[in-house]
């Protein structure tokens, strides 16, 4: 990242750096964190001191709850870098409740949650992981004898802001996949109108979560989003727009089978089912696990996990997207991308339709969807 090589442009007060050193965070690491986070939020580098300042203030109270989840987002958070999860927990936020990490259990754990909610009313950030099952009076998910529907609604209403991590909390995710046996819903559907930001992905990319928290600390508000509530800094472009294999797509060079010569040489994965042309996410630019890799880099196509209802609209995952003609022409490919997204939204608008379509479909043939 360019900013790493020009730390002298960034001026963070000496006093701040010393404070972080006293906490066991080296000045190098702190500067790196502030610049990387500023860059992740797509802000100019002049904002670095402001980000540093925000980190300086009192730890932000955070309540992290899980409902119909697999804990994958909590696990992703544990893999966070710059700062690492340990630093975030000790220095950046005050994690008042997290079932995965907290030491307390049973009624004492519940008490901690309740106390934090009252003490920091209107000031805490709520992080929700997992969908919320509304079916049959909420019996499909209870914690301490209370339904997720009840407790989530109360926590969202009292929060300064709610961050939905992962596709389940954002859009319903896998529990809401057809036929949605438990009537699972997303947080924005459970509590319409509440200040909610969605960080879909299965699971969330920890760096996008950190950047969102820091944005909140820096500006006292959530970042700008698209119409699906996703921050533009992370979901503003399609995977296909930034993909390292895009040149091969444009040149008409495709892997035809897993492990063939083209596949080994990094050709485009479109024919093996890659959903990058329809998926908005910053995977190719920030990657995962401290920039180690991402789907396409490891030879497997994108499954579209940051899009609503992707389990229904993007599957079968190994069938290519509806036929994209005109290989090699940048403009055509783009136009098709947009056309596809619209057409798919219409075709798969309802779950029921999605599953009928899926079952009735001959999976090895391309779906032919007319372009508008």
């Amino acid at each position, binding site marked *: 990242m360019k900013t790493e090589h020009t730390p002298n442009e960034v001026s963070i007060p000496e006093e701040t750096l010393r404070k972080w050193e006293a906490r066991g965070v080296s000045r190098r690491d702190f500067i790196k964190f502030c610049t990387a986070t500023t860059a992740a939020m797509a802000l100019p580098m002049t904002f670095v001191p402001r980000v540093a300042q925000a980190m300086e203030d009192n730890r932000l109270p955070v309540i992290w709850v899980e409902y119909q989840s697999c804990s994958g987002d909590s696990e992703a958070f544990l893999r966070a870098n710059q700062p690492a999860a340990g630093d975030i927990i000790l220095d950046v936020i005050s994690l008042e409740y997290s079932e995965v990490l907290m030491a307390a259990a049973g009624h*004492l754990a*519940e008490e901690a949650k309740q106390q934090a909610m009252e003490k920091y009313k209107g000031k805490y950030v709520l992080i929700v992981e997992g969908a919320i099952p509304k079916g049959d009076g909420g019996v499909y998910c209870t914690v301490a*004898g209370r339904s997720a529907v*009840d407790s989530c609604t109360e926590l969202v209403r009292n929060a300064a802001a709610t961050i939905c991590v992962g596709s389940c909390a954002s859009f319903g995710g896998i529990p809401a996949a057809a036929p949605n046996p438990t009537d699972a819903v997303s947080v924005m559907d459970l509590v319409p109108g509440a200040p909610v930001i969605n960080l879909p992905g299965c699971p969330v990319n920890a760096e996008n979560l950190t950047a969102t928290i820091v944005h909140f600390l820096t500006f006292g508000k959530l970042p700008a989003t698209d119409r699906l509530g996703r921050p533009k800094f992370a979901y503003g472009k399609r995977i296909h727009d930034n993909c390292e294999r895009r040149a091969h797509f444009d040149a008409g060079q495709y892997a035809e089978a897993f492990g063939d010569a083209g596949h080994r040489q990094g050709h485009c994965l479109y024919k093996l089912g890659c959903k990058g042309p329809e998926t908005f996410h910053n995977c190719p630019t920030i990657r*995962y696990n401290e920039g*180690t890799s991402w789907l396409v880099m490891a*030879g497997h196509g994108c499954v579209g996990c940051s899009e609503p209802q992707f389990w229904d609209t993007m599957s079968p995952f190994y069938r290519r997207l509806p036929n994209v003609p005109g290989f090699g022409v940048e403009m055509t490919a783009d136009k098709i991308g947009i056309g596809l997204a619209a057409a798919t939204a219409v075709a798969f608008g309802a779950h029921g339709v999605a599953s009928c379509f899926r079952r009735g479909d001959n999976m090895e043939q391309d779906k032919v969807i007319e372009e508008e």
Partner: protein
Amino acid sequence: MAKKIAVDPITRIEGHLRIEAQLEGGKIANAWSSSTAFRGIETILKGRDPRDAHHFTQRFCGVCTTVHSMASIRAVEDALKIQIPDNARLIRNIIMGIQNVQDHVIHFYHLHALDWVDITSALKADPKKTAQLAQSISDWPNSSVKHFKAVKERIAAFVSTGRLGPFQNAYWGHSAYRLPPEANLMAVAHYLEALEWQKEVIKVHAILGSKNPHPQTFLVGGMAIPVDPDSQNAINADKIAYMQKLLKKARLFVEQVYIPDLLAVASFYKDWAAIGGGVGNYLAYGDFHMDNAGGTDNLYFPRGVIMGKDLANVLPMDEKKITEYVTHSWYDYSGGNDRGLHPYQGETSHNYTGPKPPYDFLDTDGKYSWVKSPRYNDQPMEVGPLARVLVAYASGNQDAKTIVNYVLGQLGVGPEALFSTLGRTAARGVDCLMMARMNEKWVADLVNNMGRGIYETHNAEKWDPSTWPKEAQGFGYHEAPRGALGHWIRIENGQIANFQAVVPSTWNAGPRDAAGQMGPYESALVGTPIADENKPLEILRTIHSFDPCLACAVHVMDGKGNELIKVKAL
């Protein structure tokens, strides 16, 4: 006087678990284990492409995120009789191996240690004595006075803010905590170090599988990650070297930090070698193929069954003897709720009869959990690292014998001590060390293949569903970090006709069966002493020793009680 208590939520686990217990004379007289959430993924799977199943089932659990991919893919490969290339076998072993290693370390430090380690007592420790203690048990370079002093100061600064975050409201100061302050400080320092370590070593998943959690690299017939020393976009020498570095780092931490800490902590809690034994029957599917023949004869962890703690007789495992009961689970079987069904015949029609939320207690005489009760030959079975290690030990696996004997020798206890809460926690360490050492061998074998020009990672012969038989069924297994994991699939006309998973936590967390036999959690809790009924720390110790993972366990339910959707021929 008997008194009933409920611990809900059980924290530091995956998912939603509730324990109710009847206390009498300072001990647990009776216990009930209940899962309080479900999603219905099995229903969602019906009618889908069997090649996609692993993407869905991987979301059963986000903690050990590869294991369901593995079991699902093996189920499809078993059904379609697909043999995978040798490189795919090795890559799978490496992915699974590092998953087990990383998961066990996280479990020990972040999910289990606080049951034994009083973090607040660490503030009273002398960093000099802590360094002496640490250096006396291991060569770990990070054991200086300076290091422990810095950790102590950091914790003190944190505590002085008056905001303990995830550490508030815990059972600190409880009379059942027994470590001296120095051991507590050492453990707290390693809690933080392990947090850093785990995110590094799991990058092996990212290299081979794009990311962690939820890697995206498995395929029916092999792996999506290409292998080619002459490519920038495949596993080449560069990436091999990176993996070797990470795997060595993983092994060193296990050898020099985890195992010494485990032994040091355990030496203060030896009475727990006689508490929390449970059902005494152990089941392991075995795993980690040592050759490419595809059978189950040459597995690093062998397959087998031990009944009634009888280590002299390891019985063969027969998946046909597995059934699931719903007598005390919120489901109905069409043929009556008192019979067990094999997973191929599994039925999942829900019938919630529990109290309307909010509630104080469940009706434990009736149905009280979303988890079914799996049985082997109608017996409850414990699965997990203890089962895996016991079967390996009793079958004569040399690595298992050497390490188990070392651990028992260090603690001065006999093999019978393994049948306990402490034994379960120790066996996890043994399992972890065995895997940490094997990982480097599998990478060496992969390098050897690549050196001989063998680059194949995927067998595409049966990739196209038009080559499949009209009907097929298969069993996929895996020794996940938490134990024996099985997926059963029935394929009709190229689509999933039925899918059943019996996961490790279903075996362990399940409620009573038709004969009233308790599940392993329940059984292990009976007889446990409870010093303070308001702070039942002892319940956490035994339950956490199983490493519960409940999202997994409640995967298989059909929320609407729908009949299997009849799949029409196209």
